[in-house]
């Protein structure tokens, strides 16, 4: 009979890994089971923007904590605190900017409004068509492609077992413990955390849960290395542009423009018809990009539920099972909310409240 873990985490993204680390620190014998490799999902392919200016008001305290954790990770994740500027190019966008940034400021983010002249001082290579802008000194970015390697080290350090290339295909809880079926054998654990990102709906179904999880297909593009253009993280009042230039000179362009495909198909594609406005917006904001070439555009799945708040808490109706996912801005917030989840599993009161999945799911079907 295989070993019995105190906790099995399905999903080796940031959320699952952070929760596993905390649980192991708290003394639980923990395993992370990942269908591909650590950080191969959204956690490894996202734009890495750490911007309080694009965080939801209600999630601001979590985002601020998330920033602190990434800052501590520092070099290991390519962390840079550069400050960030959000731009409005017309009156409608200026109103949106004023209204939203005021609320975010109230929620604790140190955001200030700045004049177009100040923008030109801070970033001389930005478009001169800015009509309004905001600034947050806390903003910056990290390198999401290092997520997997970073968490691999952390998980190793606290003694979490890692099982990669191991999809969980069925969950049996008839014998008391959770028995996870995988192509390479059964994994047994007394507690279970589903942190399956965009695949959370499918994983929930293995427990008989019908989770209203959907996936967005976000697009990111990167240019080859070029001369220095911008030093801060550049955003747009609508949130539809994030842009930063890495120290090596490559420029990363995101903003949540939608590709095609779905988690069920197992693949997603860049949609040239949405890539076009994404790149145009970037070019409009930073005209000097006309000297750059795009070397790669890609997509990843970002999960959400209808209210766009996280699923983080006990699985409704199933003892010792927990759900974690659908965190908007989950790269920024992930390490912190994952840690809170670890605390909940350990039986501790989390520092900030979690987001009870029971708001969507009332009963679990008997499995």
């Amino acid at each position, binding site marked *: 009979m295989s070993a019995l873990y105190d906790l099995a985490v399905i999903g080796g993204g940031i959320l699952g890994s952070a929760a596993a680390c905390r649980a192991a620190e708290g003394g639980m014998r923990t395993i992370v089971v990942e269908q591909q490799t650590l950080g191969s999902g959204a956690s490894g392919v996202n734009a890495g923007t750490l911007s309080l200016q694009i965080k939801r008001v209600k999630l601001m305290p979590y985002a601020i904590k998330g920033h602190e954790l990434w800052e501590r990770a520092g070099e290991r994740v390519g962390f840079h605190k550069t400050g960030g500027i959000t731009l409005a190019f017309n009156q409608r966008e200026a109103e949106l900017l004023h209204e939203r940034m005021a609320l975010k400021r109230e929620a604790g983010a140190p955001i200030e409004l700045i004049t177009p002249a100040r923008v030109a001082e801070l970033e001389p290579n930005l478009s001169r068509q800015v009509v309004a802008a905001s600034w947050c000194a806390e903003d910056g970015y990290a390198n999401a492609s290092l997520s997997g390697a970073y968490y691999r080290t952390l998980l190793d350090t606290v003694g979490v077992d890692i099982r990669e290339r191991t999809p969980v295909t069925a969950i049996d809880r008839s014998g008391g413990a959770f028995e996870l079926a995988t192509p390479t054998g059964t994994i047994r654990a007394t507690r279970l955390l589903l942190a399956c990102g965009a695949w959370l709906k499918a994983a929930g179904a293995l427990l008989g849960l019908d989770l209203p999880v959907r996936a967005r297909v976000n697009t990111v593009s990167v240019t080859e290395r070029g*001369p220095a253009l911008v030093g801060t993280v550049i955003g747009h009042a609508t949130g539809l542009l994030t842009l930063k230039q890495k120290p090596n000179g490559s420029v990363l362009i995101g903003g949540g423009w939608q590709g095609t495909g779905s988690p069920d198909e197992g693949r997603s594609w860049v949609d040239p018809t949405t890539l076009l406005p994404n790149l145009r917006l970037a070019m409009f904001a930073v005209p000097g990009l006309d000297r750059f070439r795009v070397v790669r555009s890609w997509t990843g799945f970002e999960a959400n539920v209808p209210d766009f708040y996280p699923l983080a808490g006990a699985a409704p109706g199933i003892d010792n099972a927990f759900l974690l996912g659908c965190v908007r801005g989950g790269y920024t917030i992930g390490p912190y909310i994952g840690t809170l989840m670890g605390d909940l599993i350990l039986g501790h009161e989390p520092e900030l409240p979690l987001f009870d999945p029971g708001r969507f799911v009332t009963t679990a079907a008997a499995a």
Partner: protein
Amino acid sequence: MAGDLRIGSAWARTVSFRFDGELLTAREGETLAAALYAQGRRTLRMSRDDSGPRGAFCFMGVCQECVVSIDGRLTEACRTPVHNGLVVESVR
């Protein structure tokens, strides 16, 4: 490396172009990479990483080693035909 590497002598019109300010000649329609290579201009830029010299490698638009700047835009020299008056800068 001395001399010209072009085979034979019956050529179409000769054109001139500038590479980093220097006036060079090419056969009209020849690609920039071939024209520079044939005249011993094999170094097109310095690597950012090891600061070693780099030049055209694949001659088929794949490796990107031959990238130069024309009108401020990055272009593969191996896919750019030379025409009279072309001004080419190397990429830092």
